[in-house]
């Protein structure tokens, strides 16, 4: 994990916090140096401040993405203006947080990014008692088969791929059904309800916001 932050106090607290959670954290003060470092080393997650000496966080991010490096990046910014966020996310940030950051929130977001990355990278996704194998399309909960139907497995995969992201019902339907199948939104709802019931007791929770859509997240309780 790489933290790029020029304020020593803040950097120290963030590093302490992340180290206490068992991450190994490198820290860079200067935009140019961070850019050089990122050129030669791979990190699992980059926490990037925007206002940096040398070159701005956005520039670092832009040059990272221009090398087609898809390391997850969380932007830390003290500016709360929306335009900044849009710039950040357009440049290719995976997430952003506004300073002062809530450390619990920060580590939760890091975890989500790590999960998403792990979920995409390997065939086996496991969260608590839930284990999902992409290759065999089989989900087990606490070692026992979760008895999911094909559609539920499909939905589970969509949710795991998008942990921490908001998906509208239409998006879910679009990914679940082909054009011929004429997805009914109610069927999506039923499916989500059924899947949610089956996931009961695992850390993977699917939240519904009527209107905006669905978001899967990993519950912090365990």
């Amino acid at each position: 994990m790489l933290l790029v932050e020029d304020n020593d106090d803040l950097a120290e607290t963030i590093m302490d916090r992340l180290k206490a959670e068992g991450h190994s954290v490198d820290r860079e003060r200067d935009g140019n140096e961070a850019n050089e470092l990122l050129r030669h080393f791979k990190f699992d997650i980059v926490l990037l401040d925007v206002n940096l000496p040398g070159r701005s966080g956005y520039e670092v991010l832009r040059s990272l993405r221009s090398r087609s490096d898809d390391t997850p990046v969380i932007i830390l910014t003290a500016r709360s203006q929306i335009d900044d966020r849009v710039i950040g996310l357009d440049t290719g940030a995976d997430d952003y947080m506004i300073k002062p950051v809530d450390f619990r929130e920060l580590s939760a977001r890091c975890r989500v990014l790590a999960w998403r990355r792990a979920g995409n990278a390997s065939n086996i996704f496991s969260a608590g008692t839930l284990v999902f194998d992409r290759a065999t399309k089989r989900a087990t909960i606490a070692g026992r088969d979760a008895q999911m139907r094909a559609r539920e497995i499909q939905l589970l995969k969509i949710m795991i791929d998008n942990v921490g992201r908001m998906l509208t019902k239409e998006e879910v339907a679009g990914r679940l059904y082909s054009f011929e199948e004429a997805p009914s939104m109610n069927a999506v709802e039923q499916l989500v309800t059924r899947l949610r019931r089956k996931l009961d007791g695992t850390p993977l929770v699917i939240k519904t916001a009527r209107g905006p859509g669905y978001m899967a997240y990993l519950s912090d309780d365990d």
Partner: protein
Amino acid sequence: MTEVAGRSLQRRLLVTMAGGFAVLLILISLLLWTYSRNAANRTHDLLLAGAALSILDRTSVGPDGVTVDLPHSAMEILTLNPVDRVLYRIFLPGEREITGTPDLPLPSDLVAGATPVFYDMGYHGSEFRFVVQGRQLIGSDGRQWVAVQLGQTVEWRSAQQLSFFTTGLAGLAVLSLIGLGFVWVAIRTSLSPLREIASDLAQRAPSDLGLVKGAPPREIRGLFDAINGFIQSLSRSRALTETFIADVAHQTRTSLSALQGHLSLAVDAKDPEQMRSRLLKADRQAARTVRLTNQLLANAMVIHRSDRPSQEPIALKQLVRDILAESLRDSRMRQISLSFVGDTVGAGEDIIAGDSVSIREALRNLIENVVRHGPPDNTIAITLTATGAELRLSVEDAGPGIAEADLSRATERFTSLSAESMGSGLGLSIVKAVADGHGAELNMGRSRLGGLDVTLVFRRILAVLTLVLWALSSAQQAQAQTLLVHSATDTPAMQPLIEAFEARTPGVQVTYVEFQTIALYHSILDLGDAPPPDVVVSSAMDLQVDLVNRGLARRIQLPPEVAPPPLGRPGGPRSSASHSSPPSWSTIPERSRLRSFPAATGTLPLSCARTRPGSGDASGLTISPSRAWATSTRRRTACRARRCCACSRSWAAPSFGPSAARPTWSTRRHGVSLPSPSMPSAPMRPPRSRRNPSSGCISSTTTTW
């Protein structure tokens, strides 16, 4: 306005005027030059002509031919001009010279006649003015012409021309200068009000924000008013800033000293346990300080942005969606159930002139308020509706709400109504500032969910076309309406109900079509071009549930005062339960026919909310049920009604207390069981599945979970 700028204006005016005068002078001097030349020529030509005449007068024909006796008077006349030299020549044209300088030049086309001919011509390097005049003499040889040519240098007449010209020009130049002087005076005088303003402003102390006094001329009234307007808004803004700084100083000092207090207590702690608890307090206080700071900055930003015209047309619906998607990422929102209903507002109908940053801030603060002040499993229902030129954005929650008496104080800055939640008292004042900045109305009241209902009423930008369409459609609605009922219940049984309904709601006609249950089901599934019914009544529970689950029903919302009591209430007599289960529910494919029934008089408890397949969001249109209906018609139809009321149990859902956001149409896994004496203790309520979202219910059209 400074003195330098004033002078430059004067200079510009003067230069323009001087340029004008110069052009005028050049034109006039051209004329003057020609005129003075003519005048000088005229004077001297007279002398020349006089001399020539007197010479001709002394020519005579003698025996030797033509002779001339040069008269003394001619010489006298010519010596009147003391400067110029004179040459003369007397000759017989075409024959011979008589006397004088023989090679004086003649114009080629000259014909000697009795009238004198004047012309300018060079001779031996000097400019001469010549006159040629002839006289016919009668001698022995008959008639004969004799001509006199006189030449004079032009020195004097040139001098005279120049003197005429310069005198004239000098006069004009003086006149022009005087004119310019007047212009200068006029400019000075008319710009004097500007100089007064300038000196007034220049002499001011920085803190003096009084208005500039005076009665400006009409031409600079705009400038004058603008300056005063600017001073006024500056003074307003400074007053705001001063109050704000004072408030901020107080709030942050208080908050920081509390933090410091906790920390120093922690330092002095006797044992680790005590220190830990004090540090926890300090941590919480720090979090509050952070939030306070954020809100203070947000407040300042909102007020600052409301001062300047940063508003542009924005689509409110998409903005709200974005904000909700963003706020859902907050981990504190995970227990909270959030819904957003805005389906009645179509694309393009949600345009307001606004500042998206401020609105975002307002909505975020409202959500933040719910999160902070409500229980962790709170419910937030956000609704966007459009009525006429208004767009209402309401945020409701199921939290503790605000007491009626405190509502007016709630939007005041730094007024926190709840002591235990330790609010900064800024959240609602930010919302209020945003509302004020947008010219929007801010209404607060009790929500259907039991908590607070904050509604922002924006003025939307309606395209003229939309307005016309809207007016047309509402005009159509105002005309007679027909309520189309497709039903599997015998017509005679329903007739009294229909008649009573029609009697109570003038302008609404009921068309009642009877079907068999299966045929009814199929007809709804495959409507084709047929008009969709507003109400579908059938006793085939499974088929009805299937229709509902296909998204063909609309949600029913009843005001609490007319909602039926809960079915199967323990201890309640069976009859009351059946009486109060109205035989109404609806499936309305696609097009809503029910728009605006007069609700005041009380009508059938038919309220049909359409759900478009594909959206899942329902909009509620409510028709109040009639009390009369309950007395006059229910006995006759009660038993049948109970039988045909597929979803009667779901009546309980939308109507009671703070549970309106819960599913309206919910069924057990295998359809609906009717309330019956055998199951009085099975309470008809929606699944309470907040903690355990997967409890046994099939999700249906408007299921929240």
